[in-house]
């Protein structure tokens, strides 16, 4: 007795649905996985993103040499914070520090503050330690720590560059206003993280 084609198709469909699904998502293992997870770490956290972008914004606003000094100082000091995280050295209030970094840097941009370069570098350096500590704590669990480090340092640098690129609008009067408004938005976002609204 021959079964109807519809029933045969139905059976096949049920069998397919009942099958164990093989690797549905990319597991993020190995070198590529390490780089991807490291690259996504600073980008996937809004608190990190706004702080990094405002470092670039502020650097551009301050002009030379801050425009390049701040993005150069930040990764190195962040790495130092990362070492503390990897070593398990407790740093109280990491999340508060990260939220404060967005608030303070945002205010600096919004107010178009131009302190001496060393004050700007120290301020950015202090906040970099908090960001680095957060990254460092995650580092030992990464699939490939070197690729993870590479990914997150590159992502951090690119966020700075995007901030600098936006900050270069300050040569136009309307651009200056746009940057200062963005600074205000950044500090509000930081406030949102500090008060757990975000």
């Amino acid at each position, binding site marked *: 007795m021959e079964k109807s084609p519809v029933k045969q198709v139905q059976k096949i469909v049920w069998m397919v649905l009942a099958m164990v699904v093989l690797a549905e998502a990319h597991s993020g293992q190995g070198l590529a996985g390490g780089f991807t997870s490291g690259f996504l770490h600073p980008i996937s956290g809004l608190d990190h993103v706004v702080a990094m972008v405002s470092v670039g914004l502020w650097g551009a606003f301050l002009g030379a040499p801050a425009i390049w000094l701040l993005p150069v100082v930040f990764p190195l000091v962040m790495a130092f914070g990362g070492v503390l995280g990897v070593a398990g050295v407790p740093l109280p209030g990491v999340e508060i520090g990260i939220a404060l970094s967005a608030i303070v840097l945002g205010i600096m941009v919004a107010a178009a503050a131009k302190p001496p370069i060393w004050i700007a570098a120290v301020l950015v350096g202090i906040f970099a330690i908090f960001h680095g500590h957060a990254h460092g704590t995650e*580092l030992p669990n990464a699939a490939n720590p070197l690729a993870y480090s590479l990914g997150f340092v590159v992502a951090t640098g690119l966020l700075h560059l995007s901030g600098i690129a936006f900050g270069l609008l300050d040569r136009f009067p309307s651009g200056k206003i746009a940057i200062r408004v963005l600074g205000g938005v950044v500090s509000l976002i930081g406030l949102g993280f500090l008060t757990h609204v975000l």
Partner: protein
Amino acid sequence: MRKKLFGIVALLLLTPQWASAHVPVPGLNDFYNGLLHPFVSLPHLLILIALGILLSQHPKKDSSMPTAAFLSSLAVGLGLATFSIGFSTETFLLLGAGLLGFLILLNWTVPYWSLGLFAVLTGLLMGLDFAGETVISKAALNLGTGVTLYFVFVCVTGLGEGLGKKKWQQIGLRIMGSWIAAIALLVLSLLLFVKKT
């Protein structure tokens, strides 16, 4: 102070290494695996890029001897590795990458002889690190590895020399130095503080 420093160096040397032998890509022969080899071994790429940028920051007349020294020592290192003479040099490569990254960041003009020394050490340590590979033809693998390393080195040095003329390009190179030093510092701290599981 000296004792503490000695202790830290000794700890670093005793730290567990990540797999120094990188599993070749199945289906490819040893030469092609060698060509791809440096791309799956990030400490090698990191120090190679750092050395290339550092050389490009110096006058062209100062970079010819270190370039020759690097290629010669790389050939010696890979030759020794072909006869399984060598050891895992990942820690040293990361230390070197950190140091070179820092020098790039500072944009210092280092003495001519030290450029040659960095080049020789980098080439030798990179070559010796490939001694632990388990493949059918080590000679083919190391030949492929040497070809890729040579081209990457030439490309980085050439790009650095081409890019390092304008002020903002020099700043870009210094930012890269900062990134390299940061990455090396983080991974070294992992080697030092986190035991391999």
